[in-house]
């Protein structure tokens, strides 16, 4: 049984209070809903809402010219603990929100909502908002995908990266035609400038390590078609799955770490196949010229302009525009983690997170899903370990395995308790510890079932050895007993 508690604050700016409030401000409200996952597991979500009116500072902040400035001004004034949400209700006629937009979601954990309708409409908006900013039914059930009966989740449900303690990111530049293109990419600088801020933001979630390489004479597995109309080469959408495999063999997945590897490839097509565009299912060229594969990584095609005159000496020196490349790669990184901005309710406007890569509430989304997933994994692992021990009666549990199990149970319990109260940060840390301990306990090399024989096998081995040896011993023992008995009887007989 899980309980997920989300602390929410709804702040009413002057002039935006709906007429039909049940009680005067400020007041608290709790809403609980149940999500049944399977017969034994249900997830209860609990929204603890505080309704209040603005303080003077918040009013001043809301008086800013644009929503973005208001958001920036409000940031220091709100509750910034992980997992919490603040919703500011502005009057209907306010010019803060642009036309046609009813909800503006900022970079941090707050949103500006246009008032309108009564309390019921407000509650509906609040629900939509929590769906976007915290978690939805489908994201929680996807995190618990092990327990959902098969057939309820589509085959695409489990495509986001599984929660792991660390990830390795590898950037590779593929240059199949070094004779024509001498490609330079300043990857170190790009990583420090653009990738590192995103990874720093995600450092709460996992440890990341980054490396990069350049591969020469690495070709894609598919020959692109030449399209006369656009005089360019096209890769159609259904040939994309076959592109990755021939390259993967040469990528050299890291030999050192056991963490999942995310590969980001930048492919500079050969002179003879330039320019190369990727076609989507409808036949239109893709604007980003990139595609990604769930749980693996992404590939982007970088076209180089043809040389101006045929006499330019080859190889052409190419300086890769890292900003454009990193925009695509970081977007792919977000998509691999499951942070997509596509499915939004209408009239929502999302603030772009800028160089940080993801907004605070998107980090919260990840943390909710990962915490739930971690706790579910821990309970499955420990249950299956218990079943293994039941089956093999004489398995030996070493002390350190036992202590890991105790630690895993304690951490899992504390994670569930913290989730029920709404402390997302401590819940996540506890769930990470629980997963580490339970994995260590389960995968301990001493628990191999092969090493422990059931008792009947032991009998089967020792009986053929000792039974023939024991036969003369037992017989002579019997003879001794017989003789002593006879001797005892004889004296009485003679007398």
């Amino acid at each position, binding site marked *: 049984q899980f309980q997920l508690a989300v602390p929410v604050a709804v702040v009413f700016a002057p002039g935006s209070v709906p007429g039909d409030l049940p009680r005067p401000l400020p007041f608290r409200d709790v809403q609980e809903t149940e999500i049944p996952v399977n017969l034994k597991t249900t997830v209860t979500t609990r929204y603890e809402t505080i309704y209040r009116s603005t303080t003077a500072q918040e009013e001043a902040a809301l008086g800013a010219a644009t929503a973005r400035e208001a958001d920036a001004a409000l940031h220091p004034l709100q509750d910034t603990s992980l997992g919490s949400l603040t919703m500011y209700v502005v009057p209907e006629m306010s010019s803060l929100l642009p036309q046609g937009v009813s909800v503006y979601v900022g970079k941090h954990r707050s949103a500006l909502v246009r008032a309108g309708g009564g309390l019921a409409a407000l509650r509906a908006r609040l629900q939509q908002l929590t769906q976007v900013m915290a978690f939805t039914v489908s994201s929680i059930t996807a995190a618990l995908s*092990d327990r959902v009966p*098969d057939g309820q989740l*589509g*085959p*695409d449900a*489990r*495509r986001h990266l599984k929660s792991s303690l660390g990830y390795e990111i590898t950037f590779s530049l593929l240059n199949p035609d070094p004779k024509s293109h001498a490609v330079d990419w300043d990857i170190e600088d790009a990583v420090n*400038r*653009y990738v*590192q801020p995103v990874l720093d933001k995600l450092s709460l979630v996992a440890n990341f390590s980054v490396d990069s390489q350049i591969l020469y004479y690495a070709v894609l*597995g598919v020959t692109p078609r030449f399209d006369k109309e656009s005089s360019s080469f096209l890769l159609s*959408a259904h040939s*994309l*799955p*076959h592109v990755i*495999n*021939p390259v*993967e*063999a040469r990528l050299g*997945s*890291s*030999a*050192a*770490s*056991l963490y999942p590897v995310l590969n980001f490839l930048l492919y500079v097509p050969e002179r003879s196949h330039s320019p190369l565009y990727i076609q989507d299912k409808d036949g239109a060229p*893709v*604007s*980003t010229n*990139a*595609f*990604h*594969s*769930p*749980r*693996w990584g992404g590939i982007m095609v970088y076209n180089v302009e043809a040389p101006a005159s045929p006499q330019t000496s080859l190889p052409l020196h190419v300086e890769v525009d890292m*900003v454009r490349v990193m*925009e*695509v790669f*970081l*977007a*792919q990184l*977000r*998509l691999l983690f499951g942070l997509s901005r596509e499915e939004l309710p209408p009239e929502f406007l999302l603030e*772009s*997170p*800028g*160089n940080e890569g993801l907004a605070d509430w998107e980090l919260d989304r990840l943390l909710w899903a990962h915490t739930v997933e971690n706790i579910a994994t821990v309970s*499955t692992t420990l249950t*299956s370990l218990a079943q293994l021990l039941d*089956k093999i009666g004489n398995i030996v549990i070493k002390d350190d395995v036992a202590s890991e199990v105790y630690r895993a149970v304690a951490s899992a319990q504390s994670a569930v308790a913290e989730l029920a109260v709404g402390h997302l940060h401590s819940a996540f840390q506890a769930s990470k510890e629980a997963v580490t301990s339970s994995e260590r306990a*389960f*995968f*301990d*090399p001493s628990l*191999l*079932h*092969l090493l422990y024989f059931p008792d009947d096998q032991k009998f089967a081995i020792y009986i053929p050895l000792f039974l023939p040896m024991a036969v003369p*011993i037992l017989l*002579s023992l019997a003879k*001794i007993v017989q003789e002593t008995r006879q001797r005892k009887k004889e004296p009485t007989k003679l007398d």
Partner: protein
Amino acid sequence: DQAEQFFRSGHTNNWAVLVCTSRFWFNYRHVANTLSVYRSVKRLGIPDSHIVLMLADDMACNPRNPKPATVFSHKNMELNVYGDDVEVDYRSYEVTVENFLRVLTGRIPPSTPRSKRLLSDDRSNILIYMTGHGGNGFLKFQDSEEITNVELADAFEQMWQKRRYNELLFIIDTCQGASMYERFYSPNIMALASSQVGEDSLSHQPDLGIGVHLMDRYTFYVLEFLEEIHPASQTNMNDLFQVCPKSLCVSTPGHRTDLFQRDPQNVLITDFFGSVRKVEITTETISLDPDLADFERKLPKDELATEPLKYAEQLPVAQIIHQKPKQKDWHPPGGFILGLWALIIMVFFKTYGIKHMKHIF
């Protein structure tokens, strides 16, 4: 398209575990079997990092091999399956039942390198191919050990508990191979065997130049079938079940699909033998501000002052030299020794009689 999506497998990566359980020159055909399957699997896209190959690897450089550094799979030496890029992960005496089960269940000592591990997750389709000498319910490993079908079934159950596979295809080419999959009870496993219980799997043909049988019949015909598969082909499992009928194979191949969720009709060969990835077009981008990045770039962190490193004491020599001998507690003799002495004493008294005791004491 919706219906198509429903029948598609939900896997994102592929692994293969290929095991040849015999050694010695006369078992050439088992090594050739495994290497041929290895080549097909590589050709169809699974990279070496996702293949765990366990071979005794004593064929290519065997002193009895008339063509050193080669292993042929067809007479007239048409195809050298040993090639240049065979990456054997467990070779020679490392191919043991224990290592095999450790690879499957993941209970590996932490010092094992990444290439020797099966790092599959809940979205991996795994192909397991085993060949060698087998019997009713067991498979012989390297002439000294056996793995029983119960142990194998338990290993698969451990894998399922930890969700180490999405779907598993188990192919076995040994005598009485069908007995090995009788005991499986975990979901999402499909099994194929080259012969039923009570039947022997036969080898294909000997090569007079090399002097041994080069391949087994079942694997030979499976390979012929796989040669026609390319990464984009839509051939399904039902065709694989028809490979090698009794007229060609002499034994009756069997298969088991009751544990598998999807209909074999909808399972593509490339779901297990190849590695066809799901891809999505990237339609979103984020916007990066290069000037902002310049401004906000943190100063490089100072090098952390590291202590000079030195070796840890491996053997506490000082302690050992100055150790005093430990007083060992005296324990009364237990069990076996006591019984032995009791036996000796009884035999002694039987022989000499009790009244002679007074001569001793």
